[in-house]
């Protein structure tokens, strides 16, 4: 593997000191107080139309500055997903525009129908209660397959079957015919093989970042400024421009530190409304901060999904054919649309499609009157891998096979290329999975525990389980992948690094400093990163999502760093024409080929700025457009105790080992893995947004009722990596941020199966579902 000096170091986080001293500023910390506050009126029906609104009494509440209803806002619709925009030459790739600032057509319970701006929150809330609304009500549909049969009226105009997207990837007919099959169904049910099938469900997980969604807007210098807790400041600017129908250049978005996003803040939920309200009150500063409760049902959680999966397998442990059908519930608005469930069924295929004769992956995304849903960490993949691993677990259990051996007979191998994806750019190019699995097996004590836990009886049982994972890096070739970076030499020989990419807690700023230092040939400590993105000055980058930044933005960072190094050496060559041979920058100085130290970097920097004959403040722009994708693999092993009568699962030990390519900073990778593992434990056992199917209303919109794991629910976490060099990453690296949330949940499911022999297909496996399963199987 290539040798690096700065990349790979366990550098302390550049933001840690500010964050432990309270000096790190988040959106509301920067907001000038007192300022005007905006509050939203939400519908109390789940489907229908606002006929009329009476705001007379609301307007006279002392402290109220303005009341605005769905009948006052522009008719403009706009898209809100954190996806790239496209030029006219690729207009078909643009996101669907289905949201308005406020809408009289109520599609979900709690839809946004009016807003109040007031001197303080008390006045705003009082005014909200005084608004009288008259509705026309329609029946609520929450089941996606029921919605596909059509609703009157459809959830979104022009979509009578409520279908947002439908895709099918299937083994071509001629290949099936050559094997004597008429269809993939025919292959899966070939009586020469063992057949397995089930229905599965994965619930709506909520991101539950601890900082709520918050922004504030004001007008200055004829421009609209929005300071927002967003993962995607440049996209935020574009969407405010689109929603308000104003030039994008007249909008300025500032993104300070943000208190977690996990995908919620990869949508532009309320910044356009905040900006519009600000303009309505003459450009005065207006803050729009969601309550914790609003965060649960008026931002976008993970799409709930129904699945039907089938497989056939030979006596030789070889998967013969598999099929998956998925129905994803996007709720009342499209947001991220079909891309999520497409990830589910694609990764279902990628993980075990090495020698199958036939495969079929079909998916629908459907509008219902449920809460709108969108991006959450790993973007549909945990749900697809859940299904793949339910199948593998069931097969190994019923056939009496070792779960690890069976999986590894079929798992993705180096050189795997997805045959269904455009241009064959999605590939697994490293060889770390086998070593990951060996390491995980050893750490959990797999063989010993399997023996120990066989033939258990009684109410308390132990089990050990395994699951693998596959994940992609960034969004090429499906979407545009581009980034920019600017590096400037300071007078003292240090550097300013300005990324368009954003720090959202994942450690991006630290890693970019390491990458820039590596490319320039200096120490990480010589790099000053500009952490805040201000779209007036920050280079363009779509932002933090898809585990894309070290891969795509890292390539831009490396490009700028290499250019900086060249420019420094050019300047030295001009100032020292007598230098011998090629020049080198190392140890903060420029050296010639004969080993002469020509000039120290700080001295050279002063020449760059203040040379009497020719100045040249060196500043370089790095750019990257990435067309390739790099698959990541890994595994989780876990040990659980199941208390059958109490329907309670305790995770005793959990080990994840991943092949994420080269690690830019091993401690930061470990941080990501710890957090992902905890979120996956939550998804497996407790986290589910509960929606009343009759009304579409969320029933557990608080942190008390929505069960995020606490320090007592998460065991000691063991996170390791098998380091490889991916040829596509700027420094051999690939995705990290989202990968750890994928495999723990199905590993827990597998351990419960090992402990009890009971197969669960619905996630989360809450005490209620566990009880029902144990009762069904006669354990209780």
């Amino acid at each position, binding site marked *: 593997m290539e040798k690096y000096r700065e990349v790979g170091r366990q550098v302390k986080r550049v933001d*840690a000191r500010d964050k*432990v001293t309270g000096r790190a500023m988040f959106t509301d910390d920067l907001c000038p107080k007192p300022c005007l506050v905006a509050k939203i009126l939400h519908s109390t029906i789940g489907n229908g139309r606002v006929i009329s609104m009476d705001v007379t009494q609301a307007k006279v509440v002392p402290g109220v500055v303005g009341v605005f209803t769905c009948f006052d806002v522009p008719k403009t619709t706009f898209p809100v997903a954190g996806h790239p925009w496209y030029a006219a030459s690729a207009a078909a790739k643009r996101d669907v525009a289905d949201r308005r600032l406020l809408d009289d057509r109520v599609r979900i319970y709690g839809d946004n129908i009016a807003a109040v701006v007031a001197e303080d929150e008390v006045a705003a809330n009082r005014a909200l209660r005084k608004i009288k609304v008259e509705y026309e009500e329609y029946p609520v549909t929450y089941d996606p397959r029921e919605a596909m049969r059509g609703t009157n009226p459809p959830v979104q105009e022009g979509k009578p079957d409520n279908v947002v997207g439908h895709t099918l990837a299937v083994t071509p007919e001629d290949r099936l015919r050559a094997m004597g099959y008429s269809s993939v169904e025919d292959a899966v049910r070939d009586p020469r093989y063992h057949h397995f099938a089930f229905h599965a469900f994965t619930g709506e997980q909520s991101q539950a970042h601890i900082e709520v969604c918050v922004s504030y807007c004001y007008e200055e210098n004829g421009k609209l400024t929005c300071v927002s807790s967003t993962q995607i400041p440049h996209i935020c600017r574009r969407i405010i421009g689109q929603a308000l129908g104003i030039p994008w250049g007249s909008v300025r978005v500032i993104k300070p530190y943000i208190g977690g996003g996990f995908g919620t803040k990869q949508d532009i939920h309320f910044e356009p409304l905040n900006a519009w309200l600000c303009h309505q009150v003459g450009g005065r500063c207006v803050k729009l901060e969601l309550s914790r409760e609003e965060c649960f049902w008026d931002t976008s959680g993970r799409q709930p999904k129904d699945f039907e999966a089938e497989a056939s397998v030979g006596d030789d442990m070889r998967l013969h054919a598999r099929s998956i059908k998925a129905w994803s519930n996007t709720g009342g608005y499209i947001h991220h649309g079909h891309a999520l469930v497409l990830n589910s069924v694609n990764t279902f295929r990628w993980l075990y499609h090495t020698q199958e004769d036939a495969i079929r992956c079909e998916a629908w995304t459907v509008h219902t009157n449920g809460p709108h849903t969108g991006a959450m960490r790993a973007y549909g993949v945990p749900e697809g891998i859940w299904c793949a691993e339910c199948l593998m677990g069931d097969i190994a259990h019923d056939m009496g096979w070792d779960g690890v051996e069976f999986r590894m007979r079929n798992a993705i191998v180096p050189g795997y290329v997805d045959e269904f994806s455009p241009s064959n750019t999605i590939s697994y190019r490293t060889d770390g999975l086998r070593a990951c699995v060996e390491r995980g097996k050893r750490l959990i004590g797999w063989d010993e525990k399997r023996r120990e836990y066989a033939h258990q009886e009684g109410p308390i049982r132990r089990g050990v389980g395994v699951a693998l994972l596959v994940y992609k890096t960034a969004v090429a070739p499906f979407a545009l992948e581009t980034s920019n970076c600017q590096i400037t030499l300071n007078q003292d020989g240090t550097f300013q690094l300005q990324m368009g990419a954003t720090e959202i807690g*994942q450690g991006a700023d630290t890693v970019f400093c390491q990458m820039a230092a590596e490319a320039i040939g200096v120490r990480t400590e010589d790099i000053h990163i500009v952490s805040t993105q201000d779209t007036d000055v920050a280079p363009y980058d779509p932002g933090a999502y898809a585990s894309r930044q070290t891969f795509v933005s890292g390539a831009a960072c490396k490009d700028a760093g290499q250019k900086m190094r060249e420019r420094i050496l050019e300047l030295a060559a001009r100032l020292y024409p007598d230098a011998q041979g090629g020049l080198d920058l190392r140890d903060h100085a420029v050296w010639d080929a004969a080993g002469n130290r020509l000039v120290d970097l700080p001295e050279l920097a002063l020449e760059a700025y203040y040379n009497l004959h020719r100045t040249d403040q060196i500043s370089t722009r790095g750019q990257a457009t990435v067309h390739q994708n790099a698959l990541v693999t890994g595994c989780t092993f876990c040990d659980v105790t199941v208390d059958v009568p109490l329907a309670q699962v305790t995770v005793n030990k959990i080990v994840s080992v991943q092949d994420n390519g080269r690690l830019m900073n091993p401690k930061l990778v470990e941080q990501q893995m710890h957090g992902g593992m905890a979120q996956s434990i939550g998804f497996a056992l407790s986290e589910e947004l509960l929606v009343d199917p009759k009304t579409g209303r969320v029933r557990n919109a608080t942190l008390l009722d929505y069960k995020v794991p606490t320090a007592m629910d998460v065991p000691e976490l063991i996170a390791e990596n098998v380091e490889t060099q991916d040829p596509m990453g700027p420094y051999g690296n690939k995705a990290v941020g989202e990968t750890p949330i994928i495999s723990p949940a199905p590993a827990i499911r597998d351990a419960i199966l090992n402990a009890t022999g009971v197969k669960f297909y619905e996630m989360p496996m809450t005490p209620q579902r566990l009880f029902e399963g144990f009762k069904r199987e006669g354990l209780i």
Partner: protein
Amino acid sequence: MDMRILKCTLNGRPVQVGYDPRESLLDTLRDRLHMTSVKRGCEVGECGACTVLIDGVATDTCLYLTDWAQGKDIVTVEGLQAPDGTLNPVQQAFVDEFAVQCGFCIPGIIMSAMEMVNSGRTYTREEIRKNLSGYLCRCTGYMNVINGVEKAVDIVNGHVGAGEQDASDVDWSQRVKDGLEADCAR
């Protein structure tokens, strides 16, 4: 409603500030005294992000009326650094043990760790987990946070570093990990 004047001690200094009697201490600290380390996450005592020490007791300020804070001694994260800027042992351990990610819940957790440090005793990891169970952190899985708290408490009240040059140089997470691996092998 007419304003009242709060007189209390904040981070070791006497302060006076006007407040609305209906106000929570969270809003007074953030909006009137600019202690922005005190974070608002839920406003109903579910997340712990707004924790400060009131007369030495870790308290959710969103559930505490400013009116009750008359004459109290209040400490926030802003008050933990030494006058020369040296980080408090808890702050330093959080930096060294990579306990910080987005950092939003961190000031509250640090104040709870301070309560443990100030108790003069050491804690098992299970006790630390229990004491931190009122805090929600979505980034860290609590692992490095617990490492940081355990290390800081042991540096101040325990015997960590005996025979070692400088206790703060101990790679705590490696220690924990070695212990876990040995445990796995058993």
